[in-house]
């Protein structure tokens, strides 16, 4: 078996304020391999973004990792100093955020923001970094790169800014890219362009891609494996096809029947999950999904279901139920 590029094991993240500690990510384990696209799906408050920020060493001050490890090519990133992490960011791993306007510096031109990353991480000369910047911009589909690198973020449309973000993320040829809702702020036609570009570039370079999204269509088109998160935990993991055709967790099933689809009849009714996404700051006993679960039983209220590597549920759906229901 190929050793995964990054292995997250038993990771817990706690928020502390005014002496109150709240567990936001609870005993999370997953891995991602080179050249692979892993999707993380979940609603607000599921901990999907936090877990990747922890991998990047970018947790804010009130958040703390209380247990677990992030093994990246044999090194536990959580044991590194801030300075060592800073050197790894950009070179080994980089991140693409949802809102490209707020993640670019508005008072510096595009070119300098890309060359900075190249000079810093690859130690190239100014001229070499400049020519690599032009190549990168061309690779991500920014036409007329020589002229455009002298322009500022406000000269760029949302889609173009996201292309620039991808260029910056790729600048030092990292081994892992984490993209947190990279196309949520973009139009559908641009969304398709950006995701096609991103998955293609990652496949070409053998880069591992963690794609955080709430859109099940994007998961289906771009990811091979999926982690479904709820209430700070992975509740189900598997290949995109397995989860779609044979969901076993009631939450996965609920998500799938919540979305209207173009390939189904208009009259097909939607079956929403009742209630609201679990508020991480409100304690829930047992399985955190139980107040919303159609199949919850007494055990679900009292006992937290263990994660067996595929699913965390006391009474998972059998395949037969899926076909009948």
């Amino acid at each position, binding site marked *: 078996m190929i050793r995964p590029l990054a292995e997250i094991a038993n990771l817990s993240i706690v928020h502390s304020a005014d002496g109150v500690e709240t567990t936001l990510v609870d005993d999370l384990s997953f891995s991602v391999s080179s050249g692979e696209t892993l999707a993380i799906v979940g*609603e607000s408050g599921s901990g999907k973004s936090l877990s990747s920020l922890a991998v990047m060493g970018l947790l804010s001050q009130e958040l703390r990792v209380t247990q677990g490890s992030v093994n990246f090519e044999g090194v536990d990133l959580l044991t590194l100093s801030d300075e060592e992490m800073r050197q790894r960011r950009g070179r080994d791993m980089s991140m693409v955020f949802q809102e490209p306007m707020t993640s670019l510096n508005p008072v510096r031109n595009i070119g300098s923001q890309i060359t900075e990353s190249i000079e810093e991480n690859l130690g190239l000369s100014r001229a070499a970094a400049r020519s690599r910047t032009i190549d990168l911009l061309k690779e991500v589909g920014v036409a007329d790169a020589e002229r455009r690198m002298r322009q500022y973020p406000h000269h760029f449309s949302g*889609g173009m800014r996201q292309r620039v973000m991808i260029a910056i993320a790729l600048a030092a040829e990292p081994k892992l890219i984490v993209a947190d809702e990279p196309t949520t702020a973009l139009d559908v*036609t*641009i969304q398709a362009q950006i995701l096609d570009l991103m998955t293609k570039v990652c496949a070409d370079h053998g880069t591992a891609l963690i794609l955080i999204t709430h859109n099940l*269509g994007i998961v289906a088109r771009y990811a091979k494996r999926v982690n479904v998160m709820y209430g700070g935990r992975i509740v189900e993991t598997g290949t995109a*096809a397995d989860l779609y055709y044979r969901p076993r967790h009631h939450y996965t099933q609920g998500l799938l029947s919540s979305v209207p689809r*173009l390939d189904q009849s208009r009259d097909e009714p939607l079956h*929403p999950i009742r209630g609201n996404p679990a508020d991480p700051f409100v304690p829930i006993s047992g399985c955190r999904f139980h107040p919303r679960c159609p199949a919850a039983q007494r055990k679900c209220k009292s006992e937290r279901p263990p994660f067996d590597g595929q699913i965390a549920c006391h009474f998972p759906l059998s395949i037969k139920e899926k076909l009948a229901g």
Partner: protein
Amino acid sequence: MEPSFLRIEGVSVHFPVRKGLLQRQVAEVKAVEKVSLTLKRGEAFGLVGESGCGKTTLARTVLRLVNTTEGEIWFDGENITHLKGAALAPYRKRVAAVFQDPFSSLNPRMRAGKIIAEVLRVHGYAGDVKGRVIELLDLCGLSERFFDLYPHQMSGGQRQRVGIARALAIEPDLIVCDEAVSALDVSIQAQIINLLEELRVRLNLTYLFIGHDLSIVRHLCDRVAVMYLGRVMETANSEELFSNPQHPYTRALIEAVPNPDPLSEATREFVGLSGEVPSPLDPPAGCVFHPRCPIAMDKCCSVEPMLEILHPGHNAACHVVTSRPEDEK
């Protein structure tokens, strides 16, 4: 013929761009350009398109929050385009809006009960205000407990329910929903969509539903108009538009939506749309879509196509599509 309930007739909205010390007008943003649409009473009409296509501006002209530069808007037999002040009040009582972000459209310092009661008071509701507010909350699936909660004490879905309850307070006939479910989590989106559908039947409401998520618009709306750079490119009933799209832009838009089925996604042919939406400050000559269109002809670069009837109920503004039947003759 069925009388139209809301009729938008040749409506254009241009915003001046001013510059310099004297604020001289240097250009014009043509946000909406000669749009004509009719809504029947009780139907849900969808407006789709990418950002900057003018769908929200059009909705705001219907709400009379933005003035039309040219054209007319008729509501239930009355021309409301230029109504002002007191003359506008009766219209305001019949048309309500639900916005995208329930967090910024609800006053953070008011409890839900007061937010809704305020609308009743402004419109001179004579009965038991508290009782009516609780009735409205209940209609939107919220218990009496929410009367005393502030917006920050609620989840996104609950806030949107308060937003809908507020819209219903005036007992409107028409509700303009501008991206009303876009900011919500997937499982909550479905709840709100179901609520909107249920309310429409129960209260005989007419919806003008603006959205960018095509699958939601198709699910919720009877008829749909696709907009691009201020113009309507195609209109048809939902079933027809999504199963038999004619305009190349509509086709590209539908194709770009990924389905949650991984196997069908793996085998689906998909040619994306290249390029980006041009600036409405300087729209292309001829058909505004021609620089991105995969099937553009010479004519498309110079002559702007009009919205033409392909067959009853299905219109498109495209030279290639509308000239096809003649070629076959």
